């Protein structure tokens, strides 16, 4: 009754493991592509610029821009521009997000408030805050405050709208559960309304963050004597394009950084998603 041991025997786990490994490799390849794409873009830029395929005066190679960047850091002027802009972004962001969340929650929770406030929000939203900058400067002066207010005004709208929508769109079955199990007003807010609205609210805050960066550059171009936006504007007027690109790349870098940061916070706050 001897079986032929020489016949090829397949181990199912071995086969599965091999497939698992292949999937892992594919995953890693995808990650690699994600990292490679910006590097590829920079490399292309560098090559095209160095070979003269694109005009080096308008598109200086990234390596030269990096050189300029380090030069500006060591001269000390960079740190103050970055610091000032970050302060304005952060202060304006908070000044827009906090009232946005509070008013949004009130709109979501109380129907009369929603019906009264939402036409006002709808009417004001299409007006670009930047168009109001001259008036903001007249009221709040040429200093930091006018930029902070401008950013706050732009950040406020996506946050208030998303927060209200977040509360309104909570599945009605959870409202039934809360009512059936006798939740009081405070418990309803802390256990149902606030956590239920959180995902959509955070999307609004994420949008607000992106808008804050768009706004700071423009606000600093128009009425400022410091900051990254000012740096971009002044360098452009003096045709110092390498310095201008340093400013642009800084904005792109901070935008990416803040996005990552907020995504991280989102994961921490929404472990149930």
């Amino acid at each position, binding site marked *: 009754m001897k079986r032929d041991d020489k016949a090829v025997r397949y181990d199912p786990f071995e086969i599965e493991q091999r497939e698992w490994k292949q999937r892992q490799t594919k995953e890693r390849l995808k990650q690699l592509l994600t990292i490679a794409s910006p590097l590829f873009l920079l490399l292309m830029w560098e090559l095209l610029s160095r070979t003269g395929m694109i005009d080096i005066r308008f598109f200086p190679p990234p390596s030269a821009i990096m050189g300029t960047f380090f030069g500006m850091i060591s001269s000390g002027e960079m740190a103050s521009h970055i610091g000032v802009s970050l302060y304005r972004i952060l202060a304006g962001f908070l000044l827009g997000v906090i009232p946005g969340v509070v008013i949004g929650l009130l709109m979501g929770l109380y129907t009369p408030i929603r019906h009264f406030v939402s036409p006002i929000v709808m009417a004001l939203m299409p007006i670009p805050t930047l168009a109001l900058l001259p008036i903001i400067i007249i009221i709040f002066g040429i200093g930091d405050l006018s930029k902070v207010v401008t950013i706050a005004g732009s950040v406020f709208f996506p946050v208030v709208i998303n927060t209200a929508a977040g509360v309104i769109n909570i599945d009605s079955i959870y409202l039934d559960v809360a*009512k059936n*199990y006798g939740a009081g007003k405070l418990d309803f807010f802390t256990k*149902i309304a606030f956590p239920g609205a959180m995902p959509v609210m955070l999307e609004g805050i994420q949008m607000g963050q992106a808008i804050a960066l768009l706004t700071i550059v423009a606000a600093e171009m128009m009425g400022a004597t410091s900051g990254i936006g000012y740096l971009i504007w002044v360098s452009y007027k003096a045709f110092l394009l390498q310095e201008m690109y340093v400013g642009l790349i800084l904005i792109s870098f901070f935008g990416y950084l803040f996005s990552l940061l907020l995504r991280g916070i989102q994961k921490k706050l929404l472990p*149930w998603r």
Partner: protein
Amino acid sequence: MSRKAKIIIRNLTKAFYKKQGSVTALDDINVTINDGEFVCIVGPSGCGKSTLLRILAGLETPSIGEFTIAIATDGENRPLQSMVFQERGIIPWLTVEKNVEFGLKMRHMPKKLIKERTAYYLKKTGLEKFSSLYPKELSGGMKQRVSIARAFANDPEILLMDEPFGALDEQNKFILQEELLSIWSETGKTILFITHSIDEALLLSDRILLMSSQPGKIIREIIVDMPRPRKIEDIRENPVMAGQFVEIWKHLQEEVQRSRREDE
């Protein structure tokens, strides 16, 4: 048997007003359900059985009529009723444990009691190991266990169940039905249970109320007096039960066909 009445529903009517034609969802419902009784309501979809349950649950108000839920005189501070909702009824941003203790928390019961009772029902429903997980990590059957544990932990006078096993596969359904019966016999609670499934009604209930649709009326009452514990195979083999199955089946068919004719 001199059992006390637990739920008394008198002349209860619910109409929904709409400009394009109003609907009488419930028409003059009169029912008395005894203490500790397990009653199933069976009827075609749209017959208003969910509306009846939602009225008893305090989620909707009757147009006319009233109902009373008797309060036990043992001095315990109990809520009148707790509901086991259809599949999506557990709150996704609360862990299993937080879901189970939800009712007790909302009523601000003493911490010690909340902990003890939550732990008891987590164990009873086999959810101990999953207590710190979020619902997204649970299967459909496990989710409904959470929902049942939450309702029983709240220790209400009566339990209302709105097709709690409707979305489960057969095997899971049988297991949960048995678990529910075991908790029911231990606690002696009065349960009003809505279902589509005739088998489910025959397996679970002491009494089945058959409803007609449009307007929703209770048209028939069937006493299921098969001894407990029951098994699904006993129900299939028992000729009386088989007869009752066919009876309910025919009624449902007639109802569906009648409403179809009226729609045309």
